[in-house]
C-alpha cells in the first residue's frame, strides 16, 4: 500500500517575469515501511521536494496525499495538526533546541499530542534504548557530540510513531563512523517499527542503506534504483555508477 503519493507536482518560485521551475511534473510513491533515498546534484530540487512532501511548503500544482489525505485541501492549521500526528523530521543541522535537555527535546512531539506523562516516559525509554542515548538523557545539546545530537534528533522523529519520517541530509554534518552508526540505527528502526523513511542525501554511502534510490535532475525523476536482493556493497557501487552518469554534462554539438 502506498503511504505517500505525489502526482504531477510542480513547484515554481519567483514572479511571472522571472519564473524558476524547481519541480516539474514529478510523480513519486512511497510504500508502507519503505526506506527511500532521494539523490541529486545541488540545485536539482531535492530539498524542495522534501519540503513539499513533508507539508512544510506548498506545491504550485499537482496533488500530494499521505495516508489518503490530500494536502491541497488542508488549511495551515490542519497541516500543523497533521504534521504532529503523522510526520517526523530529521535535519542536517540537528535542529535541537539548545535550551532543552536531550530528553526534553525528544519528548516535545508527545507534548503536542498531549500524551500522558507515564506513556511518554515509556516511549522515551524504548526509543532511547534503541538509539543508545539513554545515558545522555539529562545532558544539554552543547555537551554531546554531533552523532549523539543526530541520534537525539532521530529519536524525536520516531517517538510519536509517525507513519512517515523525512530526513534532510541527516549525515551531512557527521564523520563517517557516526554517519554509518546512525544509518544502521535508522534502517533498524525502519524494519522494527515499520515506519517509512524518505531521506534526501548526496552521499552514495548513505543512500546505499535504503531500499530504493530516486535520482532527481532538474526537477524531474531521472532514474530509480532498487536494492532488491543485492548486498549493500553492490548497491553502493550501482548508486555511484548512476551518480556518475547523472553528474556528467552532455555537450549538444
Amino acid at each position, binding site marked *: 500500500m502506498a503511504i505517500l503519493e505525489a502526482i504531477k507536482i510542480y513547484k515554481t518560485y519567483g514572479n511571472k517575469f522571472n519564473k524558476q521551475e524547481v519541480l516539474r511534473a514529478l510523480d513519486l510513491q512511497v510504500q508502507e515501511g519503505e526506506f527511500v533515498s532521494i539523490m541529486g546534484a545541488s540545485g536539482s530540487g531535492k530539498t524542495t521536494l522534501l519540503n513539499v512532501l513533508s507539508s*512544510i511548503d506548498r506545491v504550485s500544482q499537482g496533488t500530494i496525499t499521505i495516508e489518503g489525505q490530500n494536502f491541497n485541501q488542508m488549511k495551515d492549521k490542519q497541516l*500543523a495538526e497533521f504534521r504532529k500526528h503523522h510526520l517526523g523530521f530529521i535535519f542536517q543541522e540537528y535542529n535541537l533546541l539548545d*535550551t*532543552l535537555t536531550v530528553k*526534553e527535546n525528544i519528548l516535545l512531539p508527545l507534548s503536542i499530542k498531549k500524551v500522558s506523562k507515564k506513556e511518554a516516559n515509556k516511549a522515551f525509554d524504548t526509543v532511547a534504548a534503541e538509539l543508545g542515548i539513554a545515558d545522555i538523557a539529562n545532558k*544539554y545539546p552543547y555537551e554531546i557530540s554531533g552523532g549523539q545530537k543526530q541520534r537525539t534528533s532521530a529519536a524525536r522523529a520516531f517517538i510519536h510513531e509517525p507513519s512517515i519520517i523525512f530526513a534532510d541530509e541527516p549525515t551531512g554534518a557527521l564523520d563517517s563512523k557516526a554517519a554509518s552508526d546512525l544509518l544502521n540505527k535508522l534502517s533498524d528502526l525502519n524494519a522494527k517499527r515499520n515506519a517509512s523513511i524518505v531521506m534526501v542525501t548526496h552521499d552514495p554511502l548513505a543512500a546505499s542503506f535504503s531500499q530504493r534510490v530516486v535520482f532527481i535532475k532538474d526537477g524531474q525523476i531521472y532514474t530509480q534504483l532498487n536494492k532488491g536482493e543485492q548486498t549493500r556493497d553492490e548497491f553502493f557501487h550501482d548508486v555511484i555508477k548512476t551518480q556518475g552518469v547523472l553528474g556528467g554534462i552532455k555537450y549538444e554539438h
Partner: protein
Amino acid sequence: MSINQIIYRNLKKNMKNYYVYLFALVFSVALYFAFVTLQYDPAMDEATGTVKGSAALKAGSVMLIVIVSVFLLYANNLFIKRRSKEIGLFQLVGMTKGTIFRVLSVENLMLYIGSLLIGIFLGFSVSRLLMLILFKVTGVEDVATLNFSTEALVQTLVVFSAIYVLIMLMNYIFIRRQSILALFHVSSTAEQRVKKMTPFQMLLGILGIGLIVFGYYLSSRLFSSDFFGNQLFIVMLTILASVILGTYLFYKGSVSFIFNMVRKQKGGYLNVSDVLSLSSIMFRMRSNSFLLTVITTLSALAIGLLSLSYISYYSAEKTAKDNIPDDFSIPYSENTSKAPAPEQFTKALNEANIDFTTRHVDLLESGVDLWNVIELPDEEGGIEPAFDARNTTMTVIGDDDVADLDVQKTDVIFVNRMKTMERLIPFKEQGQITLSGEQTSIDLTFKGLKDIAAIPLRLTGGFPVAVVDQSVYEVLASDKDPEIEQEFTEYTGVNISSNSNVEKADEIFSKTGLSKWAAYESRHATIINQKLNVGMMMFIVGFLGLAFLITSGCILYFKQMDESEDEEPSYTILRKLGFTEGDLLKGIRRKQLFNFGIPLVVGLLHSYFAVKSGWFFFGTEMVTPMAIVMLIYTGLYSIFGTLSVLYYKRMIKMR
C-alpha cells in the same frame, strides 16, 4: 554606488527596523525640551516660589540628562551590535574603517537632526499641558501660557550634541576594535551560552532570596524603637546593600533555580509554553542579571519616591488638621509681651464681619517621670532612649480646656498623639507617672493615649500633652517650678464659623502681621504652602519616574528584539514539529509575562517595603496613594510587554 547613496539606503532601511530607537530618541528630546522649557518659563516663578523649587527643577533636569544619555548609549550599543554583519560586509568589500565610521556618523546625524526637530516640536506642545498639570497639583492659580524659550532650545541642542558626540565615540571604539571575522560573529558571542545548573548556583539562588527577605525584615524593624541614632544609618545601609545584592543574586541564581525545580518536576516532559518561557528565561535572566538589577533597583526607587511624594500630597490636608487643630493658632506668652495678643486678630475679624469662635487653653510645662509608661528596648540591647525618662518635662493642660474629655482626679490621659513619635518612643497601655512642681509631686495613673488634637503640634514638638483633672492642674500651676523654661503659657485657637470666610480671614491674619510671629499659624496657609512644596516635588519625581519608566521599558523591549532574533531558529523547529502559531504565541505571552513581570514584581515589592518602613514621616494615609501609584506604573509598564508580544507575533507570522 557612492557613499552618499549607501548612507541614504541604510537610512531608509533602518527607519523601518529601528523605529523604536527613533521613538526613543524623539521621546527623549521631547521630554527634555519640555522640562527645560518649564524651567525657563517666567510663569514658573510663582509655582516654584522659593529658591528650593527652582533648585529642585535644576536637579531634576540634570537627573534627566543622566537617564536619557545612559539610555541612548545603551540603545546605540544594542543597535550597532545588530548591524555588525553589515559593517563586516562593508569592510570585506574594501571600505576602510574610517569610511565606515563616516557612513555611520552621517547616518546617525541625520537621524539625530530629524528626531531633534520632531522632539522639540512635540516637547513644546506638551509643555503647556505639563504646566497645566503642575499648576493643578501645586494649587497655583495662573493661566498657563507658554513662550518659546531660546534658552531652552540652546540647552537642549547642547545636551543632545554632547550625547551625539559620546555615541559616535562609542561607535568609533567599537569599529576600531573589530576585525572582519569578529564582526561576523559578534551576535553569537554576545549572549552567554547555555550552561548547566551547578550546586554553587543553587547556593547563590537561595542566598539571593535570603538576602532580600532579610532586607525586608530589617526594613520592617527600621523605625521601631530597636535602633537609634547612628545605628539607624548603619541599618539603612545594610538594608540597601542586602536588598540590592539579593536582587542581583536573585536574577543570577534564584530565577534559574526556581525554574529548574519546576522543570525537574515535569520530568523532561515539557509543553510548548514551558519550552518558550521556562527554559529560555532560565538562561537569559542569568546573563542579563546586572542590567535587570539596575532596572529593578531604579524602578523600586522611582515607585518608592513617587508613592512617598503622593502620600504626602494626598494627606497634606489631613496632616495639617492633625498638626493645627484650629483655623488659626495664636499662642501667648507672659514673658514676651512684644508678641501680639489674640485680641488684635479677633478685633480685626469683628470689623470685617466674620463670625468666629475661640478656644482658650492654659498651658503648663511640668516636670515628669515617665519611666514606668515607656516601653524600653530589651536590656540586652543596652540602648537607652535619647532622653532621661525619669526626669523630663512635658506640657500639661486641664481637662476643662479639652472638649469631650473628663479625667478623674487620680488619672492622666495623653493627647496630641503622633504616630511618628510613637514609633520612636512607644508608650505602655497603662502605668504610673509622677508630675512634679517645685515642691509637690503628684502620682497619677496613666490611662493611655487619645487621638485628640488639643493644641498645635508646633507648641510641643510632637511630644504628647498630658491632660489632668482641672483641680490637679490648679495645684500644679500654683506650684510651678521656675527652673523649667516655658515658651508659651496660653493658647488661643480661632475657628471661622463659615468655610467660605477662611480665605478672607487668612488675608487679615497676614495683613495684621500676626503670621510673621513664631508659632502663629494659619491652617489654610499651611495647607497651601504644603501643597506647593509637595506638589512641586511630586511633579519632578513624577516626571523623572515617567522618563525612567519609558526608558527602562524600551531597554527591555530592545532586549526582546535581540532575543527574538536569537530564538528564531527555535521557532522554526517548533513550527516544523507541528506546533501552530497559536501554540507558539501562547508560549511567548507567558515568556513576556515573566520577562517583564518578574522585574516589575520585584521592583514593586522592594518599593512596598521601602515605603512601608518610613511612610509615616510623610503623611497619614499609605494604602490608597501607594496603590494608585503602583497601578499606574504597572499599567504603563505593561504597554511595553504588550508591544514586545506584538513584535514576536509579527516575527512568527513570517515563519
